[in-house]
């Protein structure tokens, strides 16, 4: 074995130096290596999930079936969602946590490095399981991937082919990986903060992730239970979701959305944690309302656990349940408005410059605002009867998860990329990427609000002629949106390869421990913990 030693003479405990090549990445326990792998995997799967939906949008460009049959269409729609949620967005957030949490809280690494390695290496097999049925079907094995939408609603999923089993097992593995990541984040934050960094002095990004980690621990086991019950209904004769055996299909929806609603906040909280850092940096001013933001994170986390049934208002819930779930959902608007208030107040009377991360942050606030406001009216049970299961909802949650989730991740990538690579990315390409993304995103999803209002249901492979114009516009937007993301990948790639040297404090207004380390930081950082006064 290689006997690499660190500067202070101790043998290198883990990471670089043991192996080269592929083995280094397979065996690494270094938080930076693992963070890089999470982020790379996420970017790759972002393109996989994106290509699936571009095929769908191509089919929806005009009425009639052009490119594919409805069975395949349904598979693409459902697997697109699962890939984007479990394989693109969640790993991106975990990648951020791995790279940045130790740097930001002054810890030498994540608390549980081996668990960390395993947490990542579970992802590729899970993604493979999820998508394998597509390829097996090419060889005449099975009938393709999960075709029930990402929601697995029973009894459609009981009836479905083996793609459902593959997806259930994939979700299990994704879930185990996320739970391990969450445990690691919680243990790291509680035990490895620099001396003097009390919880209420901790960076907001760490707070956002801490709440996310608790939500994952609270809800993923419920999802695992639900899909396991589905698996036994499918193969072992149980009837949890079959009325003929005393079961209830709506029970599945309760269990699924007990996970599914907090999942939205699981995807958003790390981004909300990141926003004040970016806004403060480029406004050259401290983040406004630190405590208010922390309490809002906690409030949103708790509330998100008790509002799940608004995802199936049309299923025929009793009146008291409808009223309760409506009002509890509306209540989320209060802590969320606190966050918006703090974001804008952070910008207020600053000295702003608009580098790419700041552009993405501002774009995030405006477009995510549309998601929040339409979410408020979706909470209204009476109006929801019209919006539900329609393209209005599709538009709403893409404003939440594309602008709230993905554009938030892009904000973080541009913000931290110079720190990670030691090089500046191309501002010109970054800005072009931003404007193309915002323009084409709105071109894609704004028409979908109107499609929903006009009565177009979601998840249909073909539509009535009255919906043709808006669908064509939406498809054109989607193609531009998809192609624009190549700029993002190219910008990252060239930034890794070289470019203007980045300084330790990459941005003029940046504040925090991570900016006190050189860019890129050494393989092992904060071996002597900094002391916070």
């Amino acid at each position: 074995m290689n006997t690499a030693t660190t500067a202070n003479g101790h043998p290198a405990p883990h990471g670089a130096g043991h192996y080269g090549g592929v083995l280094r990445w397979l065996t690494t326990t270094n938080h930076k290596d693992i963070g890089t792998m999470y982020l790379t995997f996420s970017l790759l799967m972002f393109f996989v999930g994106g290509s699936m939906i571009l095929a769908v949008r191509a089919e929806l460009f005009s009425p009639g079936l052009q490119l594919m049959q409805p069975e395949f269409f349904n598979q693409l729609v459902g697997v697109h969602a699962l890939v984007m949620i479990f394989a693109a967005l969640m790993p991106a957030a975990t990648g951020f946590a791995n790279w940045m949490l130790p740097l930001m809280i002054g810890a030498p690494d994540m608390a549980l490095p081996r668990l960390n390695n395993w947490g990542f290496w579970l992802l590729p097999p899970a993604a493979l399981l999820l998508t394998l049925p597509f390829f097996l079907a090419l060889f005449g094995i099975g009938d393709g991937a999960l075709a029930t939408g990402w929601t697995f609603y029973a009894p459609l999923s009981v009836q479905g082919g083996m793609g459902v089993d593959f997806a259930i097992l994939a979700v299990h593995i994704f879930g185990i990986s996320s739970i391990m990541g969450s445990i690691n984040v919680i243990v790291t934050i509680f035990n490895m903060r620099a001396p003097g960094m009390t919880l209420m002095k901790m960076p907001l990004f760490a707070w956002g992730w801490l709440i996310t980690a608790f939500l994952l621990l609270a809800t993923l086991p419920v999802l695992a239970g639900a899909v396991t019950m589905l698996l036994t209904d499918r193969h072992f004769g149980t009837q949890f979701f079959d009325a003929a055996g005393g079961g209830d299909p709506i029970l599945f929806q309760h269990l699924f959305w007990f996970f599914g609603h907090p999942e939205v906040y699981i995807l958003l909280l790390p981004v909300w944690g990141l926003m004040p850092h970016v806004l403060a940096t480029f406004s050259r001013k401290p983040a406004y309302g630190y405590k208010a933001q922390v309490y809002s994170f906690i409030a949103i986390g708790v509330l998100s656990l008790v509002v799940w049934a608004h995802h199936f208002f049309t299923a025929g819930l009793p009146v008291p349940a409808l009223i309760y779930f409506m009002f509890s959902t509306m209540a989320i608007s209060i802590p969320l408005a606190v966050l918006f208030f703090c974001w804008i107040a952070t910008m207020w009377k600053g000295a702003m410059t608009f580098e790419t991360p700041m552009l993405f942050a501002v774009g995030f606030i405006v477009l995510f605002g549309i998601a929040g406001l339409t979410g408020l009216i979706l909470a209204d049970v009476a109006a929801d009867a019209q919006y539900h299961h329609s393209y209005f909802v599709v538009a709403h949650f893409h404003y939440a998860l594309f602008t709230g989730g993905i554009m938030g991740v892009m904000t973080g990538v541009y913000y931290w990329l110079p720190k990670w690579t030691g090089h500046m990315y191309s501002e010109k390409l970054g800005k072009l990427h931003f404007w193309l993304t915002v323009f084409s995103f709105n071109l894609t999803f704004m028409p979908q609000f109107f499609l929903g209002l006009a009565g177009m249901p979601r998840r249909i492979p073909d539509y009535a002629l009255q919906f043709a114009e808006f669908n064509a516009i939406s498809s054109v937007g989607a193609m531009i949106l998809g192609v624009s993301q190549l700029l993002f990948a190219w910008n990252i790639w060239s930034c890794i390869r070289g470019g203007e040297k980045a300084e330790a404090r990459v941005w003029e207004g940046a504040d925090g421990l991570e900016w006190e380390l050189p860019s890129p930081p050494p393989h092992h950082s904060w071996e002597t913990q900094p002391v916070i006064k």
Partner: protein
Amino acid sequence: MESSALHSRAVGSSRVSACLRRTSSRALAASLLLPGAAAAEYKFNFPEPVTPIARETLHIHNEFMLIITILFVVVFAIMIYSMIKHRKSVGHAPSQFSGPSSAMQWFWALIPFAILLFIDFVLMGIPAVQAIISMEDTKTRADMVLKVTGMQWKWQYEYPEAGIKFISTMSTPRAQIANAEAKGEHYLLEVDKPVVLPVGKKVRILLTSTDVIHTWWVPQFGVKRDAIPGFLRETWVLIEKPGIYRGQCAELCGKDHGFMPVVVHAVPEPEYLAWVEQQKAEAVATAGSADRAWSSEELIAEGKAVYDKVCVACHQDQGQGVPPVFPALAGSKIVAGPLLDMNGRIIPDSHVDRVVNGKAGTAMQAFRETLSDVELAAVITYERNSFGNKVGDMIQPAQIKALRQEAK
């Protein structure tokens, strides 16, 4: 060319309005900001409401769109003002505040939340609770009941008081979907047999399903409710204006989810009553015909009609199916197997068993509830003697009727 000219004359008025709508699509962005103005045209908004619930829903929607538009504009006007004034490039020196510091600042920081609380729980909340209560009040002064059963991929409608029951399937030809023919005006939103309802009557709608969850939705009724297998759900409509109203299944229910339209003919009551009488007379005629002996040709002809309506979506027009999910009937061992046992009873897992009792855990449902004796006998006979299958035997409607009585 000629036919399209005729067509455009026939639907001239709707073309004009389509033109108007297209013009307005240029004002795409503006319309979100002006929901009230857009409401008049119903391209950027819900279609024209024809029930009290739909009117209420449209009203709520317009009011909320106005509120959230104002919130959006005010909040982001402040932000954009700040982005213009508080830039480094205009030489703005950054302040260093990080929270409200005086009682006055606290007051101004809390005002927006007081407004939001008022909007949420008073302005929006109180009308919403009233709307929920009226939406869910399906029983008070209901004039009639309509039972809607969703099944892959068609709707069955039943009028329990009148004893009428029929299946309604999409009538758009598959060739139009495959782009082999020009698409009709009501492409994908047309059925062979629409459900007929009287105007001005409160109709209590009971919903259920035989297989997976479906959702019955007619946008102009403002009503959307899931049809859940093994359970009854309910809703109601009171249609105020005669007309033809179109909707679709709104819950992903498998392969042909997009091809499961709902068409409602709302007619004045006398017309409705006449329709009911006509349906009853037809039902009596059909029931009577189960007792007579049918010829093989008659059964095959009737069976083809049933097959094309009920079976073709899965088993396909040449009986080739979509293996492995939807098995082929052409060359099927089950179809070629014996019809009934020596005592005239159903053989487990035989052709008759599959059609009458279905197969649990698959899309193959039990058709004993949805097809008549004649239809069952006809479609079984048709399948045994088509797609290259040459079993050569047939089953009489009377035999099916006997099997039914035995099962009881």
